[in-house]
């Protein structure tokens, strides 16, 4: 182990792990990936020891010091490795980035899960409408910009893009297409996926959708 020894504990389906991988790629930080394969029944001793409070991935180890919670990890990486910054420079821009990060973290994944985790038609419809309402504000803040960060792919883009691997599953079970409602947001997804740092870090949406089908079967929803 030398200085700047970086390891990342991940699980393939977790959009929160995927976003950290994108950040590491964007900042060109070399790291070793440690995969947790079975989070449902058996978490490893290393995970339980390094994140005793939440017992969740991702966990980043920098020179053996653990940092937990994906948004916290990405913020840490941007400060510990200042080259290729992900945050805007000015304090106000940073506060806006943190605001949207918090919005994304609180709302997007739970709203999406509500769409596929029920088979009651009116519950699905309500969940879909709630999800689209949440996307409305994100589309509004993106506006005509190429990225949430402006001209450059940055912090907010990284936080949201990992979650989009789950969007085709939401669209399948909610029977909608995001591009019909928010074409500029859909274009942002396409533009971001064209970046090698993104396409090489994210699990394919097909694999995620297959996981959702399996989870639905497990819970008697298919």
């Amino acid at each position, binding site marked *: 182990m030398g200085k700047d020894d970086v390891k990342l504990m991940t699980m393939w389906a977790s959009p929160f792990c995927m976003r950290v991988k994108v950040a590491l790629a964007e900042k060109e930080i070399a790291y070793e990936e440690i995969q947790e394969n079975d989070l449902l029944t058996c978490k490893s001793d290393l995970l339980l020891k390094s994140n005793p*409070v939440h017992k969740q991935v991702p966990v980043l180890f*920098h020179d053996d*010091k653990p*940092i*937990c*919670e994906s948004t*916290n*990890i990405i*913020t*840490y990486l941007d*400060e*510990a490795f200042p080259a290729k910054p992900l945050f805007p420079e000015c*304090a*106000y821009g*940073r*506060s806006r980035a*943190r*605001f949207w990060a*918090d*919005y994304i973290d609180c709302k997007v994944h739970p709203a999406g899960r509500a769409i596929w985790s029920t088979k009651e038609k009116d519950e699905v419809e309500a969940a879909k409408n709630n999800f689209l309402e949440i996307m409305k*504000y994100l589309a509004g803040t993106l506006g005509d910009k190429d990225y949430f960060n402006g001209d450059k792919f940055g912090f907010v883009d990284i936080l949201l893009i990992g979650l989009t691997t789950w969007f085709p599953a939401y669209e399948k079970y909610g029977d909608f297409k995001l591009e019909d409602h928010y074409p500029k947001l859909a274009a942002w997804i396409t533009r971001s996926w064209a970046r090698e740092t993104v396409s090489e870090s994210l699990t394919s949406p097909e694999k995620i959708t297959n996981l959702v089908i399996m989870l639905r079967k497990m819970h008697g929803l298919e």
Partner: protein
Amino acid sequence: MPAIEDSGVVVLGWWVSMFTTRVRIALAEKGISYEYIEEDIPNKSPLLLKHNPIYKKVPVLIHKGKPICESLIIVQYIHETWKEGYPLLPSDPFLKSQAAFWADYIDKHIYQVVKLTWDSKGEEMQKRVEEFLGYLKVLERELGEKPYFNGESFGFVDMALICYYSHIIGFGKIGNFSVEKDTPKLFAWATQCMKRESVSMTLADPNKIYELLIEIRKKNGLED
């Protein structure tokens, strides 16, 4: 005529809101002057609705006309904008990440004290008191033997937690637990924090919070 919010620093707040208290503690620690506007919740002002259109909540800090929302984000903004004076966050990135982790833990788990006092009673209340005490004990372990969560000096995590104290005391009276007896280290820590002017001048009166909680519980049919 220039709008009030275009001049200097303005805080939109509510005396009951622990998040407003948090921001006011941070401003006081930094010695920053500001105009405070007390919102008449639930009759939210056009100014609040204009500057926080998504959540429509206090606190909002308005600096040179630009709004910053969400209390932890506001504290970080204050730290980054006014670099002189008392440091609100550690400069070391790892220590900063630890502070951010615990502040997030506090808002995920301690915030429920608000909901617990407003909508439960009897056996259900007691079950949730046990859970709540569990979270306080995790925080107590994290504090350890240090005078503050930040170490030798008052910092980000201390600010994040102390702002809940009046509500925790009020909840203790309703839920029949005592911070002093059940989490003595946290009690000692809170007593220490309250010696700071930024805290003692800003924290809501626990008796007033308790009276308000009882009033709300009566309206919700949880008290006779």
